């Protein structure tokens, strides 16, 4: 990857993996907030937009084919926390956190994160193998 963060060939994978890791960390933090406030009256459970949606919404970047081209700021993956509509339960106090649902989401995030780090590790090994050869 070059210094400007522009997409260069297959090394784009590192950038993709780190933006997914950021997304998963944010989702985990949202889950933690939901669980901590599982008994707070009127608290609405929140969730983050799915990663593929975030990825689709990323603006198309212009390729820089000459050093004299202007540089655009690298667009950050922006993950907005959205009010959740599909909660499993809403109790009388207006709280819509379902602990079971949060646990399932938590293990989803954990599994995805594990896959993410495994991909980064094996890709890193590939890069090292290429450098040694």
């Amino acid at each position, binding site marked *: 990857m070059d210094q400007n963060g522009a997409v260069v060939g297959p090394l784009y994978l590192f950038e993709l993996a780190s933006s997914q890791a950021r997304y998963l960390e944010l989702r985990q933090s949202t889950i*933690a907030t939901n669980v901590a406030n599982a008994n707070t009256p009127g608290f609405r459970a929140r969730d983050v937009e799915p990663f593929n949606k975030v990825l689709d919404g990323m603006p198309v970047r212009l390729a820089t084919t000459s050093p004299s081209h202007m540089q655009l700021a690298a667009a950050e993956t922006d993950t907005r926390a959205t009010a959740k509509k599909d909660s499993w339960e809403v109790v009388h106090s207006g709280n819509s956190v379902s602990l079971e649902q949060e646990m399932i989401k938590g293990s989803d995030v954990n599994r995805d994160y594990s896959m993410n780090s495994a991909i980064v590790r094996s890709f890193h090994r590939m890069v090292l193998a290429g450098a040694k050869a």
Partner: protein
Amino acid sequence: MLDSLSASLTVASSGLEAQSTRMRIVSENLANATSTGRTAGADPYQRKTITFDAAMDRASGSQLAKVKEIGVDTTPYRVEYDPGHPAADKAGYVKLPNVNMMIEMADMREVNRSYEANLQVVKQVRSMLGMTIDLLRS
């Protein structure tokens, strides 16, 4: 601003703290389930209640669970006829605390469940941090 994983740990620990305060209130209620007044006609122990509130934490940018208020339950006391009791009034009735064992037990189970859920979040965050650190090891 903290990174998301550290913020998750902060939030989960705020949840643990709120639930343990709730557990303290439940145990106070249970311990004082038969605490009557000392003088004739005096009021007994009044059941305590606890409410939570989501508080925005600027340092981590997330909503922590905080204890909003520890109040008292205003339901009427139980009354029992026991003329020999030191707290009995002129007619021989003693006021007993408005603590219902069943409600306290149910509350305790709920505290347990919420506490466990928060601990589970802590475990998951720790394993995620472990995976990130493992990337450096390979």
